[in-house]
């Protein structure tokens, strides 16, 4: 299976598979051999120390939250101060006159309405290109207002879980694929953009710009569910927007890249990751190449990049390193 097919299969819910050692490249094989050697006690101690030291690093998170809040406040400011720079909300907007449309919202409208207006098409293509370039699910981690609330809820969830006051129900990741198909079918059959009724992204974006409403209760319910019952459940198992952007970003030049060479395989990255299956590759004897791009489900949030004690995960923009 090619890397792209694997990445898409995982996006749809397939469990990452263990490669056969015969699939390893020569270089990867050499590094795996190296890593198989038993580590001395002092080496293991050093790994633990490095990991502890790195665990509190929030370099990317701080920057990302800054971007996320700024983008959303830009919408609010445009509306409140009437500066007309970024009109509308995250579902559909106009940036200094250029149409932009959220891909999933646009898809729901096209399926429900069964006509496509040129403005909507322009907005959709513009946004598809932007997020293809920036990595697809980058939208989730760097723009979606629900993502930020869910991250705060996650911090609380982990604290409560450590005390035994919350549980973490795991669902099939394929649920999201089914929900995507069901909501697409519902839009087509019912001629109504059914998903928009419960989209926390749309509800929150509009609440920020046009004022709060009762729909926020729904968002609060999902957050409570995540805090007490299932870590990051909406983003992991439900949100069709995430899947749509995942598809767009599958071939994106913007990636988080894994470097096998320095990796301790200590798993710090998988513990902070929204989509840990995408980081299965960091387990021992998994990477088939010395440098592997993380799959389409990755939100490019940078949590793994910042907590990795050995810089084995880095942001890469295809082609940019060649220019250097």
């Amino acid at each position: 299976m090619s890397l792209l097919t694997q990445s898409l299969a995982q996006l749809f819910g397939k469990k990452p598979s263990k490669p056969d050692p015969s699939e390893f490249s020569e270089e990867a094989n050499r590094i795996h051999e190296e890593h198989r050697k038993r580590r001395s006690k002092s080496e293991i101690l050093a790994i633990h120390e490095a990991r502890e030291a790195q665990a509190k690093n929030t370099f990317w998170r701080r920057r990302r939250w800054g971007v996320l809040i700024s983008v959303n406040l830009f919408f609010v400011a445009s509306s409140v101060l009437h500066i007309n720079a970024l009109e509308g909300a995250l579902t559909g907007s106009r940036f200094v006159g250029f149409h932009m449309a959220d891909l999933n919202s646009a898809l729901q409208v096209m399926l429900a309405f069964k006509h496509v207006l040129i403005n909507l098409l322009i907005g959709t293509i513009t946004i598809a290109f932007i997020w293809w370039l920036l990595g697809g699910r980058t939208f989730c981690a760097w723009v979606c207002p629900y993502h930020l609330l869910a991250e705060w809820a996650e911090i609380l969830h982990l604290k409560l879980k450590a005390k035994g006051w919350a549980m973490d129900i795991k669902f099939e990741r394929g649920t999201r694929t089914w929900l995507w198909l069901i909501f697409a079918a519902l839009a087509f059959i019912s001629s109504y953009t059914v998903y928009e009724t419960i989209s926390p992204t749309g509800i929150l974006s509009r609440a920020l710009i046009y004022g709060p409403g009762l729909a926020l209760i729904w968002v609060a319910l999902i957050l409570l569910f995540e805090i007490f019952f299932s870590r990051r459940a909406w983003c992991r198992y439900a949100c069709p927007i995430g899947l749509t952007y995942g598809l767009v970003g599958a071939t994106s030049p913007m990636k988080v890249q894994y470097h096998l060479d320095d990796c301790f395989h200590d798993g710090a990255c998988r513990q902070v990751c929204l989509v840990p299956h995408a980081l299965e590759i960091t387990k021992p004897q998994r990477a088939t190449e010395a440098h592997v791009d993380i799959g389409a489900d990755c939100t490019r949030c940078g949590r793994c990049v910042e907590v990795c004690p050995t810089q084995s995960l880095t942001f890469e923009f295809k082609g940019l390193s060649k220019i250097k």
Partner: protein
Amino acid sequence: MSIIKTSRRKFLKSLAFGSAAVGAAILGILPAIKGWVRKMRPPGALNEPDFLASCIKCGQCVQVCPVDAIKLADLSDGIGVGTPYIAARDQACDFSCDGLQCVLACPTGALTHEINYAHEAEMAIAKVVALSGCLAVNGQGFKGMARGPDFEGKLRYNEIDRWNPIPLNEHPYDLESCDLCVTHCPIEIRYAQCEAGNPPSGEERQCPPEHAIRMKPLEEYGGNFFMPEILEGCVGCGVCEMICPVDPPVIVMEAYPGSGRIL
């Protein structure tokens, strides 16, 4: 527990989780799909089923409206979360943007780009519903602020500020016979401008082809008694409902009876 049993449990949990999401979405939209509740939509809105299908719920129409007539529906409104509506009694559309800005702003054509002028809109059906309360019918005039000092609604008065609407409570009246619904009708204002050879923005195309409302003399009562009569040219903008100084208003807007559909 065997692996099969565990994965079966996981499957069932996932099924419940997914069903809850789909169920919530359908429950949320059911009142709109069934057409249980209807509200007045902004100018140019397609018929209700098509409008519901095409609106992307971005609120760009809300942002461009100079009198803030357009609101976005909440969960409790039952007409689709995030879809725009107009509550005419609170703030009607007085077309003071002149160019149907909300129509121009709509990215999906839910507000059809096929209309260009105020008189082409079809927003609601105006109905005279409480005639006995009408001041003109009772031969009365009106003095003071049309909706009292606390009312926040705005209207544009051409003679005061061509470009900026002002709050109603900054514009008191002193009328011998109340005819606010006729004199403030945006269609009537345009009609009068055109008759005076002075069409809005100098454009003949802005001229409404028909009258929208008039005060009909009640001759059988003699002298000073009138009743409002809605005419063919009415577009249902709601200004008459908004400005009517009696409570409940004599004229109300009724949303177009769109067909509720079954899922």
